[in-house]
């Protein structure tokens, strides 16, 4: 199975909180850590702001995998947003598995502002998992003609222009 997808580049949407994981990802960048470049980050105020519908929407719009990440327990900028999110995503994780969505396509993590290296590992692991699973054709088959393709390679990104980023397209 792995061989079949060697030239497949997973498209992964990451929903991260502003205070911890976004800053952690920033640190990973400023620390010049090498990691897979398949992830498009969408910054939100808090994991408590991340509705499970965001994940569904990402799959609808052609994501092969999703990452949700925020502050560690007890570190939430808003005291308890991540605790509420933890319950919500536990339920969502289980019910998605029940209806046949491979949980390896959904990565949940806690990454603090100082954990640039952990963010790198989370990204690399999520990309490796999704690469092994292959493109999410099963979800795309729900609406075969409707999926709007993401800009795939750097050439496409450049062609799409500076004002339209992949992240914004997914967020609409």
């Amino acid at each position, binding site marked *: 199975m792995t061989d079949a997808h060697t030239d497949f580049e997973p498209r992964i949407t990451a929903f991260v909180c502003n205070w911890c994981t976004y800053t952690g990802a920033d640190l990973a960048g400023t620390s010049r850590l090498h990691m897979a470049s398949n992830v498009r980050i969408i910054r939100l105020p808090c994991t408590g702001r991340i509705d499970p519908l965001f994940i569904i*929407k990402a799959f609808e719009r052609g994501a092969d995998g999703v990452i949700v990440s925020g502050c560690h327990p007890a570190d939430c900028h808003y005291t308890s947003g991540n605790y509420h999110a933890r319950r919500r995503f536990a339920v969502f994780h289980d019910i998605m598995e029940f209806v*046949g969505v*491979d949980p390896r396509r959904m990565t949940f993590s806690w990454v603090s502002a100082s954990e640039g290296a952990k963010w790198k590992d989370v990204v690399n692991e999520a990309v490796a998992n999704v690469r092994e699973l292959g493109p999410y054709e099963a979800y795309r088959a729900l609406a075969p003609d409707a999926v709007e393709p993401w800009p795939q390679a750097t050439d496409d990104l450049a062609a799409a222009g500076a004002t339209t980023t992949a992240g914004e397209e997914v967020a609409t």
Partner: protein
Amino acid sequence: MTEQATAPVYAGVDDLRRIARELLEAGDVRVVIGYEDARRGARPVFVSDPAETDKLIFDTRCVHNLVTYLNPRRDHVAELGKIGLVVKGCDVKAVAGLLREAQLSRDDVVLIGVRCGGVLEENELPAALALTPENVAPRCYGCDNREPTLTDHLVGEPQPEPPRPVMTIDERVAALDDQPLEERWAFWTDQFSKCVRCYACRQVCPLCICEQCIVEKTQPQWIEASAHPRGNFSWNITRAVHLAGRCVDCGECERFCPVGIPLSLLNRKLQHIMRDRYDYTVSDDPENAAPIGDYRLDDQQEFIK
């Protein structure tokens, strides 16, 4: 078709009519919502004249969860004045749900509880049948609220336990759980693809209380409105998740579904998740807070890296 035995007349029906009449005569309530016998079986009825309380019945055909009339979306019902409502054990849990979420004041309603021994799956029958494993509503098996405590009145004698259906909902959920991921996906996407997006599941639900449903939001449009498999998947998952820890398993969504999507399996799975993760079972105690909207510092997080 083999002849099926009819159920014995419900012993509490005289008390039910008397209580309804007294409530209306005393002006304690303006309307009693209960069940009546009609051409196509039992159906909900609004009784505001004390002389008409003899219409009221209760038998195994009374499957409807009348608490849906207390849903704040139905403010035209609330405008009628104070309501007397006939409720079974499962229905009372929905009342507790509305109280728990501050969608109802306990003083707005007089609850006339009926001791229920289970209802039929198919209610459009000229006579009430005795329950058998073949005809019982599967959700009735294992009912844990046969002596409701939240009611103002409780009529009828203690009823026998509902029979075990040929296949219980738990067994059907377990059978799905045992299937490989791909087959579950095939099963559910096939079921959801039947959806015509009539939203009957939402309309009938006593606990779908949003004034504006997420599915009706168009800017941005979170859930595609047309009836195609992708939007249907989003809708059905979202509906189920929004009921997580709130669903009282009255089975009305599945009964009302015109295309027969087995929503009770999804709802039951969510109940299992709530039980396994948060040791929570929905009850008719309004103080029994639902797990979503609450948290503990030591909640499970084995799925989080």
